[in-house]
Protein backbone atom coordinates (compact mmCIF):
# COMPACT_ATOMS: atom_id res chain seq x y z
CA UNK A 1 0.00 0.00 0.00
CA UNK A 2 0.99 3.62 -0.07
CA UNK A 3 3.21 4.53 2.84
CA UNK A 4 1.06 5.71 5.68
CA UNK A 5 3.70 6.88 8.08
CA UNK A 6 4.56 10.16 6.44
CA UNK A 7 3.10 13.57 7.18
CA UNK A 8 0.38 15.16 5.06
CA UNK A 9 2.25 17.38 2.62
CA UNK A 10 0.18 20.22 1.11
CA UNK A 11 2.58 20.36 -1.86
CA UNK A 12 1.85 16.74 -2.83
CA UNK A 13 -1.86 17.27 -2.22
CA UNK A 14 -1.92 20.30 -4.52
CA UNK A 15 0.07 18.41 -7.16
CA UNK A 16 -2.52 15.63 -6.97
CA UNK A 17 -5.37 18.14 -7.29
CA UNK A 18 -3.78 19.65 -10.41
CA UNK A 19 -3.23 16.20 -11.87
CA UNK A 20 -6.79 15.07 -11.23
CA UNK A 21 -8.34 18.30 -12.47
CA UNK A 22 -6.42 17.90 -15.72
CA UNK A 23 -7.45 14.25 -16.08
CA UNK A 24 -11.07 15.06 -15.29
CA UNK A 25 -11.10 17.96 -17.73
CA UNK A 26 -9.75 15.74 -20.51
CA UNK A 27 -12.21 12.99 -19.62
CA UNK A 28 -15.10 15.41 -19.96
CA UNK A 29 -16.16 15.60 -16.30
CA UNK A 30 -15.91 19.38 -16.23
CA UNK A 31 -17.96 19.64 -19.39
CA UNK A 32 -20.68 17.61 -17.70
CA UNK A 33 -20.77 20.10 -14.82
CA UNK A 34 -20.79 23.06 -17.20
CA UNK A 35 -23.49 21.57 -19.43
CA UNK A 36 -25.74 20.61 -16.53
CA UNK A 37 -25.33 24.06 -14.97
CA UNK A 38 -26.26 25.93 -18.16
CA UNK A 39 -29.22 23.66 -18.93
CA UNK A 40 -30.55 23.80 -15.39
CA UNK A 41 -30.21 27.58 -15.23
CA UNK A 42 -32.16 27.89 -18.49
CA UNK A 43 -34.91 25.52 -17.36
CA UNK A 44 -35.27 27.23 -13.98
CA UNK A 45 -35.43 30.71 -15.46
CA UNK A 46 -37.72 29.85 -18.33
CA UNK A 47 -40.03 27.29 -16.79
CA UNK A 48 -40.61 28.33 -13.19
CA UNK A 49 -42.39 31.37 -11.79
CA UNK A 50 -39.91 33.67 -10.00
CA UNK A 51 -41.57 33.10 -6.63
CA UNK A 52 -40.69 29.41 -6.78
CA UNK A 53 -37.02 29.93 -7.49
CA UNK A 54 -35.88 30.53 -3.92
CA UNK A 55 -37.28 27.09 -3.12
CA UNK A 56 -36.29 25.33 -6.31
CA UNK A 57 -32.65 26.46 -6.53
CA UNK A 58 -31.59 24.90 -3.18
CA UNK A 59 -33.28 21.63 -4.14
CA UNK A 60 -31.53 21.63 -7.49
CA UNK A 61 -28.16 22.49 -5.96
CA UNK A 62 -28.36 19.49 -3.70
CA UNK A 63 -29.85 17.13 -6.26
CA UNK A 64 -27.42 17.93 -9.04
CA UNK A 65 -24.10 18.69 -7.40
CA UNK A 66 -24.49 16.20 -4.56
CA UNK A 67 -25.50 13.35 -6.84
CA UNK A 68 -23.05 14.23 -9.61
CA UNK A 69 -20.18 14.49 -7.11
CA UNK A 70 -20.88 11.01 -5.82
CA UNK A 71 -21.16 9.42 -9.27
CA UNK A 72 -18.29 11.29 -10.93
CA UNK A 73 -15.84 10.75 -8.07
CA UNK A 74 -16.74 7.08 -8.16
CA UNK A 75 -16.33 7.04 -11.94
CA UNK A 76 -12.89 8.61 -11.57
CA UNK A 77 -11.86 5.78 -9.21
CA UNK A 78 -12.82 3.22 -11.88
CA UNK A 79 -11.03 5.22 -14.58
CA UNK A 80 -7.82 5.04 -12.54
CA UNK A 81 -8.36 1.36 -11.90
CA UNK A 82 -8.86 0.59 -15.59
CA UNK A 83 -5.72 2.49 -16.57
CA UNK A 84 -3.75 1.11 -13.62
CA UNK A 85 -2.58 4.62 -12.82
CA UNK A 86 -3.56 4.14 -9.16
CA UNK A 87 -0.94 1.38 -8.89
CA UNK A 88 1.72 3.71 -10.25
CA UNK A 89 0.97 6.16 -7.44
CA UNK A 90 1.36 3.44 -4.82
CA UNK A 91 5.13 3.44 -5.36
CA UNK A 92 5.51 7.19 -4.86
CA UNK A 93 5.77 8.96 -1.49
CA UNK A 94 2.20 10.26 -1.85
CA UNK A 95 -0.03 9.36 1.12
CA UNK A 96 -3.52 7.81 0.87
CA UNK A 97 -5.09 10.78 2.64
CA UNK A 98 -3.37 13.19 0.24
CA UNK A 99 -4.75 11.21 -2.68
CA UNK A 100 -8.24 10.88 -1.26
CA UNK A 101 -8.36 14.57 -0.34
CA UNK A 102 -7.28 15.45 -3.89
CA UNK A 103 -9.80 13.04 -5.44
CA UNK A 104 -12.52 14.80 -3.48
CA UNK A 105 -11.19 18.35 -3.76
CA UNK A 106 -10.83 18.35 -7.55
CA UNK A 107 -14.53 17.71 -8.35
CA UNK A 108 -15.63 19.61 -5.22
CA UNK A 109 -13.98 22.76 -6.52
CA UNK A 110 -15.75 22.37 -9.83
CA UNK A 111 -19.10 21.53 -8.18
CA UNK A 112 -18.82 24.56 -5.91
CA UNK A 113 -17.98 26.86 -8.79
CA UNK A 114 -20.85 25.41 -10.85
CA UNK A 115 -23.28 25.74 -7.96
CA UNK A 116 -22.35 29.36 -7.40
CA UNK A 117 -22.70 30.01 -11.13
CA UNK A 118 -26.16 28.43 -11.18
CA UNK A 119 -27.23 30.34 -8.10
CA UNK A 120 -25.97 33.64 -9.55
CA UNK A 121 -27.54 32.97 -12.94
CA UNK A 122 -30.97 32.26 -11.46
CA UNK A 123 -31.15 34.34 -8.28
CA UNK A 124 -28.53 36.96 -9.03
CA UNK A 125 -25.03 37.59 -7.77
CA UNK A 126 -24.94 39.48 -4.49
CA UNK A 127 -23.39 39.35 -1.03
CA UNK A 128 -25.33 36.23 0.00
CA UNK A 129 -23.70 34.22 -2.78
CA UNK A 130 -20.48 34.04 -0.72
CA UNK A 131 -22.46 32.35 2.06
CA UNK A 132 -23.20 29.56 -0.35
CA UNK A 133 -19.55 28.52 -0.52
CA UNK A 134 -19.24 26.64 2.83
CA UNK A 135 -22.36 24.46 2.49
CA UNK A 136 -21.72 23.83 -1.23
CA UNK A 137 -18.08 22.90 -0.69
CA UNK A 138 -18.92 20.65 2.24
CA UNK A 139 -21.77 18.97 0.37
CA UNK A 140 -19.48 18.29 -2.58
CA UNK A 141 -16.83 16.93 -0.19
CA UNK A 142 -19.34 14.64 1.43
CA UNK A 143 -20.64 13.44 -1.94
CA UNK A 144 -17.12 12.79 -3.26
CA UNK A 145 -16.13 10.92 -0.10
CA UNK A 146 -19.20 8.69 -0.42
CA UNK A 147 -18.29 8.06 -4.05
CA UNK A 148 -14.84 6.87 -2.99
CA UNK A 149 -16.23 4.68 -0.21
CA UNK A 150 -18.66 2.99 -2.60
CA UNK A 151 -16.02 2.59 -5.30
CA UNK A 152 -13.65 1.03 -2.80
CA UNK A 153 -16.29 -1.49 -1.80
CA UNK A 154 -17.20 -2.63 -5.30
CA UNK A 155 -14.84 -4.05 -7.88
CA UNK A 156 -17.16 -3.35 -10.83
CA UNK A 157 -18.64 -0.05 -11.95
CA UNK A 158 -22.09 -1.59 -12.47
CA UNK A 159 -22.13 -2.81 -8.86
CA UNK A 160 -21.12 0.68 -7.79
CA UNK A 161 -24.05 2.17 -9.72
CA UNK A 162 -26.49 -0.29 -8.19
CA UNK A 163 -25.18 0.47 -4.70
CA UNK A 164 -25.17 4.23 -5.25
CA UNK A 165 -28.85 4.53 -6.17
CA UNK A 166 -30.25 3.61 -2.71
CA UNK A 167 -27.66 5.85 -1.04
CA UNK A 168 -28.76 8.79 -3.16
CA UNK A 169 -32.41 7.92 -2.52
CA UNK A 170 -32.02 7.81 1.27
CA UNK A 171 -30.03 11.00 1.24
CA UNK A 172 -32.80 12.66 -0.74
CA UNK A 173 -35.40 12.09 1.96
CA UNK A 174 -34.94 15.61 3.41
CA UNK A 175 -36.80 16.95 0.36
CA UNK A 176 -39.93 15.74 2.13
CA UNK A 177 -39.38 18.00 5.12
CA UNK A 178 -38.00 20.81 2.96
CA UNK A 179 -41.22 20.97 0.97
CA UNK A 180 -43.32 20.56 4.10
CA UNK A 181 -44.55 17.00 3.54
CA UNK A 182 -43.07 15.83 6.85
CA UNK A 183 -42.13 17.80 9.98
CA UNK A 184 -38.96 19.89 9.79
CA UNK A 185 -37.00 17.63 12.16
CA UNK A 186 -37.90 14.34 10.39
CA UNK A 187 -34.60 13.94 8.57
CA UNK A 188 -32.39 16.29 10.54
CA UNK A 189 -30.07 13.35 11.20
CA UNK A 190 -29.16 13.19 7.51
CA UNK A 191 -26.36 15.46 6.24
CA UNK A 192 -28.38 16.29 3.11
CA UNK A 193 -30.95 17.86 5.39
CA UNK A 194 -28.35 20.31 6.73
CA UNK A 195 -27.20 21.07 3.19
CA UNK A 196 -30.71 21.65 1.88
CA UNK A 197 -31.77 23.96 4.66
CA UNK A 198 -28.48 25.85 4.53
CA UNK A 199 -28.93 26.43 0.79
CA UNK A 200 -32.53 27.48 1.46
CA UNK A 201 -31.46 29.95 4.09
CA UNK A 202 -29.01 31.57 1.65
CA UNK A 203 -31.53 31.57 -1.22
CA UNK A 204 -34.17 33.31 0.87
CA UNK A 205 -31.59 35.87 1.95
CA UNK A 206 -32.00 35.12 5.63
CA UNK A 207 -29.47 36.77 7.93
CA UNK A 208 -26.67 34.28 8.61
CA UNK A 209 -27.41 33.52 12.23
CA UNK A 210 -26.98 30.65 14.62
CA UNK A 211 -29.19 28.21 12.76
CA UNK A 212 -27.21 28.64 9.52
CA UNK A 213 -23.98 28.20 11.47
CA UNK A 214 -25.32 25.05 13.10
CA UNK A 215 -26.34 23.61 9.74
CA UNK A 216 -22.88 24.29 8.29
CA UNK A 217 -21.26 22.84 11.42
CA UNK A 218 -23.39 19.70 11.11
CA UNK A 219 -22.40 19.41 7.48
CA UNK A 220 -18.73 19.93 8.38
CA UNK A 221 -18.87 17.12 10.94
CA UNK A 222 -20.44 14.75 8.39
CA UNK A 223 -17.93 15.79 5.74
CA UNK A 224 -14.98 15.22 8.11
CA UNK A 225 -16.30 11.79 9.08
CA UNK A 226 -16.89 10.87 5.45
CA UNK A 227 -13.41 12.06 4.48
CA UNK A 228 -11.89 9.88 7.19
CA UNK A 229 -14.02 6.92 6.14
CA UNK A 230 -13.03 7.41 2.50
CA UNK A 231 -9.35 7.61 3.50
CA UNK A 232 -9.59 4.30 5.30
CA UNK A 233 -11.52 2.56 2.56
CA UNK A 234 -9.18 3.84 -0.12
CA UNK A 235 -6.10 2.77 1.86
CA UNK A 236 -7.63 -0.67 2.29
CA UNK A 237 -8.27 -0.87 -1.44
CA UNK A 238 -4.70 0.13 -2.20
CA UNK A 239 -3.51 -2.65 0.12
CA UNK A 240 -5.66 -5.05 -1.88
CA UNK A 241 -3.98 -3.97 -5.14
CA UNK A 242 -0.95 -6.04 -4.21
CA UNK A 243 -2.99 -9.11 -3.53
CA UNK A 244 -4.84 -8.95 -6.85
CA UNK A 245 -3.95 -11.00 -9.91
Amino acid at each position, binding site marked *: *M*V*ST*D*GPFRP*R*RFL*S*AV*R*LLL*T*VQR*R*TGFLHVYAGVTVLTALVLRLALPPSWLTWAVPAVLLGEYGTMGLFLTGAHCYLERI*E*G*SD*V*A*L*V*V*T*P*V*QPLELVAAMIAAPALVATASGVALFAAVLGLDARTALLLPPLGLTATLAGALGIVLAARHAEFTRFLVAAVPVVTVFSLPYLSYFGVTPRWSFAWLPWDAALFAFGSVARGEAPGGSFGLLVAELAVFAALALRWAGRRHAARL*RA*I*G*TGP
Partner: protein
Amino acid sequence: MLLEAAGLTFTYPGAGEPAVRGLDFGIAEGEVLGFLGPNGSGKTTTQKLLTRILHGYEGRVEVFGRDLATQGSAYHDRIGVCFELPNLYGKLTAEENLRFYGDFFEGPTEEVEAVLQRLDLPVGDRRLVGQYSKGMKMRLVLARSLLNRPRLWFLDEPTTGQDPEHAVLIRGLIRERAAAGTSVFLTTHDMAVADDLCDRVAFIVQGALVTVDAPRRLKLAHAGRRVRVEYRDGDATRTAELGIGDAAGRRALARLVADHEIETLHTLEPSLESVFLKLTGRGLH
Protein backbone atom coordinates in the same frame (compact mmCIF):
# COMPACT_ATOMS: atom_id res chain seq x y z
CA MET B 1 24.80 -4.96 0.28
CA LEU B 2 22.22 -2.34 -0.70
CA LEU B 3 19.43 -4.87 -0.30
CA GLU B 4 19.57 -8.07 1.67
CA ALA B 5 16.73 -10.56 2.07
CA ALA B 6 16.83 -13.50 4.46
CA GLY B 7 14.10 -16.11 4.67
CA LEU B 8 11.64 -13.90 2.78
CA THR B 9 8.29 -15.68 2.81
CA PHE B 10 4.85 -14.43 1.84
CA THR B 11 1.44 -16.07 1.66
CA TYR B 12 -1.47 -14.27 -0.03
CA PRO B 13 -4.54 -13.92 2.19
CA GLY B 14 -6.68 -17.01 1.87
CA ALA B 15 -4.00 -19.00 0.02
CA GLY B 16 -2.85 -22.27 1.50
CA GLU B 17 0.67 -22.24 0.13
CA PRO B 18 3.18 -19.39 0.30
CA ALA B 19 3.76 -17.58 -2.99
CA VAL B 20 7.41 -17.14 -2.09
CA ARG B 21 9.25 -19.02 0.63
CA GLY B 22 12.59 -18.71 2.33
CA LEU B 23 14.21 -16.42 -0.25
CA ASP B 24 17.81 -15.48 0.56
CA PHE B 25 19.51 -13.02 -1.75
CA GLY B 26 21.15 -9.63 -1.87
CA ILE B 27 21.90 -6.83 -4.30
CA ALA B 28 25.12 -4.87 -4.12
CA GLU B 29 25.58 -1.23 -5.06
CA GLY B 30 25.56 -0.94 -8.86
CA GLU B 31 24.70 -4.60 -9.35
CA VAL B 32 22.08 -5.93 -11.76
CA LEU B 33 20.33 -8.92 -10.24
CA GLY B 34 18.03 -10.85 -12.54
CA PHE B 35 15.09 -12.71 -11.05
CA LEU B 36 14.23 -15.39 -13.57
CA GLY B 37 11.40 -17.83 -13.55
CA PRO B 38 8.29 -18.95 -15.39
CA ASN B 39 4.96 -17.17 -14.99
CA GLY B 40 3.57 -17.58 -11.49
CA SER B 41 6.92 -18.50 -9.99
CA GLY B 42 6.96 -15.63 -7.49
CA LYS B 43 9.01 -13.01 -9.38
CA THR B 44 6.37 -10.30 -9.31
CA THR B 45 5.34 -11.13 -5.74
CA THR B 46 8.95 -10.63 -4.68
CA GLN B 47 9.07 -7.29 -6.49
CA LYS B 48 5.77 -6.21 -4.89
CA LEU B 49 7.18 -7.05 -1.46
CA LEU B 50 10.39 -5.15 -2.08
CA THR B 51 8.54 -2.09 -3.44
CA ARG B 52 6.13 -2.17 -0.46
CA ILE B 53 3.05 -2.74 -2.56
CA LEU B 54 2.60 -5.91 -0.50
CA HIS B 55 3.04 -6.05 3.25
CA GLY B 56 2.98 -8.74 5.89
CA TYR B 57 5.92 -10.92 4.89
CA GLU B 58 7.95 -13.20 7.11
CA GLY B 59 11.72 -13.12 7.24
CA ARG B 60 13.96 -10.09 7.15
CA VAL B 61 14.65 -7.58 4.39
CA GLU B 62 17.12 -4.77 4.82
CA VAL B 63 17.34 -1.99 2.25
CA PHE B 64 19.61 1.06 2.45
CA GLY B 65 20.79 -0.29 5.81
CA ARG B 66 17.30 -0.30 7.35
CA ASP B 67 14.61 -2.89 7.92
CA LEU B 68 12.18 -2.63 4.99
CA ALA B 69 9.18 -2.98 7.32
CA THR B 70 10.15 0.19 9.19
CA GLN B 71 10.90 2.31 6.12
CA GLY B 72 8.81 5.44 5.84
CA SER B 73 7.42 7.18 2.78
CA ALA B 74 10.95 8.40 2.01
CA TYR B 75 11.69 4.87 0.81
CA HIS B 76 9.70 5.57 -2.34
CA ASP B 77 11.81 8.66 -2.94
CA ARG B 78 14.83 6.39 -3.35
CA ILE B 79 13.43 3.60 -5.51
CA GLY B 80 12.15 3.53 -9.08
CA VAL B 81 9.58 1.01 -10.27
CA CYS B 82 8.99 0.12 -13.90
CA PHE B 83 5.83 -1.94 -14.19
CA GLU B 84 5.19 -4.62 -16.78
CA LEU B 85 1.97 -2.87 -17.89
CA PRO B 86 1.59 0.65 -19.30
CA ASN B 87 -0.22 2.10 -16.28
CA LEU B 88 -0.22 5.71 -17.45
CA TYR B 89 -2.82 8.46 -17.63
CA GLY B 90 -4.07 7.95 -21.17
CA LYS B 91 -5.71 11.39 -21.29
CA LEU B 92 -2.46 13.21 -20.56
CA THR B 93 0.51 13.86 -22.81
CA ALA B 94 3.80 12.10 -22.12
CA GLU B 95 5.27 15.26 -20.60
CA GLU B 96 2.23 15.80 -18.39
CA ASN B 97 2.44 12.22 -17.18
CA LEU B 98 6.07 12.73 -16.19
CA ARG B 99 5.69 16.20 -14.70
CA PHE B 100 2.73 15.32 -12.51
CA TYR B 101 4.41 12.12 -11.35
CA GLY B 102 7.70 13.88 -10.68
CA ASP B 103 5.92 16.43 -8.48
CA PHE B 104 5.24 13.77 -5.87
CA PHE B 105 8.91 13.25 -5.04
CA GLU B 106 10.76 15.26 -2.44
CA GLY B 107 14.26 15.23 -3.89
CA PRO B 108 15.63 16.53 -7.19
CA THR B 109 14.18 14.94 -10.30
CA GLU B 110 15.45 14.43 -13.83
CA GLU B 111 14.69 16.91 -16.60
CA VAL B 112 11.57 15.59 -18.31
CA GLU B 113 12.82 16.46 -21.80
CA ALA B 114 16.15 14.71 -21.20
CA VAL B 115 14.47 11.52 -20.00
CA LEU B 116 12.11 11.51 -22.98
CA GLN B 117 14.99 12.00 -25.41
CA ARG B 118 17.04 9.27 -23.73
CA LEU B 119 14.22 6.82 -24.37
CA ASP B 120 13.60 8.00 -27.92
CA LEU B 121 10.23 9.53 -27.06
CA PRO B 122 9.09 12.76 -28.73
CA VAL B 123 9.56 16.00 -26.83
CA GLY B 124 6.77 18.58 -27.06
CA ASP B 125 4.37 15.98 -28.43
CA ARG B 126 0.76 17.13 -28.00
CA ARG B 127 -0.69 13.69 -28.59
CA LEU B 128 -2.28 12.02 -25.59
CA VAL B 129 -0.55 8.91 -24.29
CA GLY B 130 -3.63 6.84 -25.08
CA GLN B 131 -2.69 7.27 -28.75
CA TYR B 132 0.85 5.92 -28.29
CA SER B 133 1.93 2.46 -29.41
CA LYS B 134 2.53 -0.16 -26.75
CA GLY B 135 6.29 0.15 -27.16
CA MET B 136 6.16 3.93 -26.65
CA LYS B 137 3.94 3.55 -23.58
CA MET B 138 6.32 1.04 -22.07
CA ARG B 139 9.29 3.33 -22.69
CA LEU B 140 7.33 6.11 -21.00
CA VAL B 141 6.73 3.86 -17.98
CA LEU B 142 10.47 3.24 -17.92
CA ALA B 143 11.15 6.98 -18.19
CA ARG B 144 8.77 7.62 -15.31
CA SER B 145 10.61 5.14 -13.11
CA LEU B 146 13.82 7.09 -13.63
CA LEU B 147 12.48 10.53 -12.73
CA ASN B 148 13.47 10.51 -9.07
CA ARG B 149 17.02 9.26 -9.80
CA PRO B 150 16.48 6.00 -7.92
CA ARG B 151 19.30 4.25 -6.12
CA LEU B 152 17.42 0.98 -6.41
CA TRP B 153 15.59 0.39 -9.67
CA PHE B 154 12.95 -2.31 -10.06
CA LEU B 155 12.33 -3.39 -13.62
CA ASP B 156 9.62 -5.85 -14.59
CA GLU B 157 10.16 -7.13 -18.14
CA PRO B 158 11.58 -3.78 -19.30
CA THR B 159 11.93 -4.75 -22.96
CA THR B 160 8.34 -5.97 -23.36
CA GLY B 161 6.75 -4.69 -26.56
CA GLN B 162 9.96 -3.14 -27.91
CA ASP B 163 11.38 -3.55 -31.40
CA PRO B 164 15.02 -4.72 -31.54
CA GLU B 165 16.37 -1.18 -31.87
CA HIS B 166 14.60 0.05 -28.76
CA ALA B 167 15.35 -3.14 -26.84
CA VAL B 168 19.03 -2.39 -27.43
CA LEU B 169 18.48 1.21 -26.31
CA ILE B 170 16.89 0.04 -23.06
CA ARG B 171 19.61 -2.47 -22.38
CA GLY B 172 22.18 0.28 -22.91
CA LEU B 173 20.33 2.54 -20.46
CA ILE B 174 20.24 -0.17 -17.80
CA ARG B 175 23.97 -0.79 -18.22
CA GLU B 176 24.64 2.94 -18.05
CA ARG B 177 22.66 3.39 -14.83
CA ALA B 178 24.24 0.34 -13.20
CA ALA B 179 27.69 1.67 -14.10
CA ALA B 180 26.71 4.93 -12.41
CA GLY B 181 25.94 3.02 -9.20
CA THR B 182 22.22 2.29 -9.45
CA SER B 183 21.32 -1.18 -8.24
CA VAL B 184 18.85 -3.00 -10.44
CA PHE B 185 16.34 -5.70 -9.56
CA LEU B 186 15.27 -7.11 -12.91
CA THR B 187 12.46 -9.62 -13.20
CA THR B 188 12.16 -11.32 -16.55
CA HIS B 189 11.62 -14.58 -18.28
CA ASP B 190 13.74 -13.44 -21.23
CA MET B 191 17.00 -15.32 -20.75
CA ALA B 192 18.79 -13.38 -23.49
CA VAL B 193 18.10 -10.09 -21.69
CA ALA B 194 19.19 -11.58 -18.38
CA ASP B 195 22.32 -13.09 -19.85
CA ASP B 196 23.25 -9.79 -21.46
CA LEU B 197 22.56 -7.49 -18.50
CA CYS B 198 22.79 -9.29 -15.21
CA ASP B 199 25.81 -9.54 -12.95
CA ARG B 200 24.00 -12.35 -11.19
CA VAL B 201 20.78 -14.22 -11.83
CA ALA B 202 18.44 -15.90 -9.37
CA PHE B 203 16.35 -18.81 -10.65
CA ILE B 204 12.99 -18.97 -8.92
CA VAL B 205 10.52 -21.80 -9.35
CA GLN B 206 7.29 -22.31 -7.41
CA GLY B 207 8.25 -19.57 -4.97
CA ALA B 208 11.68 -20.94 -4.05
CA LEU B 209 15.14 -19.95 -5.22
CA VAL B 210 17.02 -22.71 -6.97
CA THR B 211 20.31 -20.87 -7.36
CA VAL B 212 21.83 -17.37 -7.40
CA ASP B 213 25.02 -16.89 -9.37
CA ALA B 214 26.70 -15.06 -12.24
CA PRO B 215 25.39 -16.18 -15.65
CA ARG B 216 28.89 -17.04 -16.88
CA ARG B 217 29.68 -19.15 -13.81
CA LEU B 218 26.37 -20.96 -14.15
CA LYS B 219 27.01 -21.70 -17.79
CA LEU B 220 30.53 -22.89 -17.16
CA ALA B 221 29.49 -25.00 -14.22
CA HIS B 222 26.82 -26.72 -16.25
CA ALA B 223 28.60 -26.84 -19.57
CA GLY B 224 29.54 -30.20 -20.97
CA ARG B 225 32.83 -28.51 -22.03
CA ARG B 226 32.48 -29.55 -25.62
CA VAL B 227 33.76 -28.15 -28.90
CA ARG B 228 32.38 -28.37 -32.41
CA VAL B 229 35.00 -28.77 -35.14
CA GLU B 230 34.45 -28.41 -38.87
CA TYR B 231 37.34 -29.95 -40.79
CA ARG B 232 38.31 -30.95 -44.30
CA ASP B 233 38.24 -34.64 -45.11
CA GLY B 234 39.31 -34.95 -48.73
CA ASP B 235 36.88 -32.85 -50.71
CA ALA B 236 34.21 -32.95 -48.03
CA THR B 237 33.66 -30.80 -44.95
CA ARG B 238 32.82 -32.82 -41.87
CA THR B 239 31.71 -31.84 -38.38
CA ALA B 240 32.65 -33.42 -35.08
CA GLU B 241 31.57 -32.60 -31.53
CA LEU B 242 34.12 -33.56 -28.91
CA GLY B 243 34.12 -33.42 -25.15
CA ILE B 244 37.26 -31.77 -23.84
CA GLY B 245 36.65 -32.35 -20.15
CA ASP B 246 38.79 -35.46 -20.07
CA ALA B 247 42.13 -36.65 -21.45
CA ALA B 248 40.58 -38.89 -24.09
CA GLY B 249 38.54 -36.02 -25.53
CA ARG B 250 41.51 -33.68 -25.59
CA ARG B 251 43.63 -36.35 -27.34
CA ALA B 252 40.91 -36.83 -29.96
CA LEU B 253 40.81 -33.07 -30.59
CA ALA B 254 44.60 -32.96 -30.88
CA ARG B 255 44.54 -35.81 -33.45
CA LEU B 256 41.87 -34.06 -35.46
CA VAL B 257 43.81 -30.81 -35.49
CA ALA B 258 47.03 -32.63 -36.44
CA ASP B 259 45.52 -34.77 -39.21
CA HIS B 260 43.06 -32.39 -40.87
CA GLU B 261 42.69 -28.89 -42.11
CA ILE B 262 40.38 -27.16 -39.55
CA GLU B 263 37.76 -24.83 -41.01
CA THR B 264 36.03 -23.71 -37.81
CA LEU B 265 36.30 -24.54 -34.12
CA HIS B 266 33.71 -23.41 -31.52
CA THR B 267 33.22 -24.07 -27.84
CA LEU B 268 29.69 -25.23 -27.13
CA GLU B 269 28.53 -23.20 -24.14
CA PRO B 270 25.07 -23.94 -22.89
CA SER B 271 22.55 -21.13 -22.98
CA LEU B 272 21.24 -19.71 -19.72
CA GLU B 273 17.90 -21.20 -20.66
CA SER B 274 19.34 -24.70 -20.93
CA VAL B 275 21.03 -24.23 -17.55
CA PHE B 276 17.69 -23.13 -16.13
CA LEU B 277 16.04 -26.18 -17.64
CA LYS B 278 18.70 -28.44 -16.23
CA LEU B 279 18.54 -26.97 -12.74
CA THR B 280 14.81 -26.62 -12.42
CA GLY B 281 13.55 -29.38 -14.66
CA ARG B 282 11.22 -26.98 -16.49
CA GLY B 283 11.20 -24.29 -19.13
CA LEU B 284 10.36 -20.63 -18.82
CA HIS B 285 7.32 -20.38 -21.04
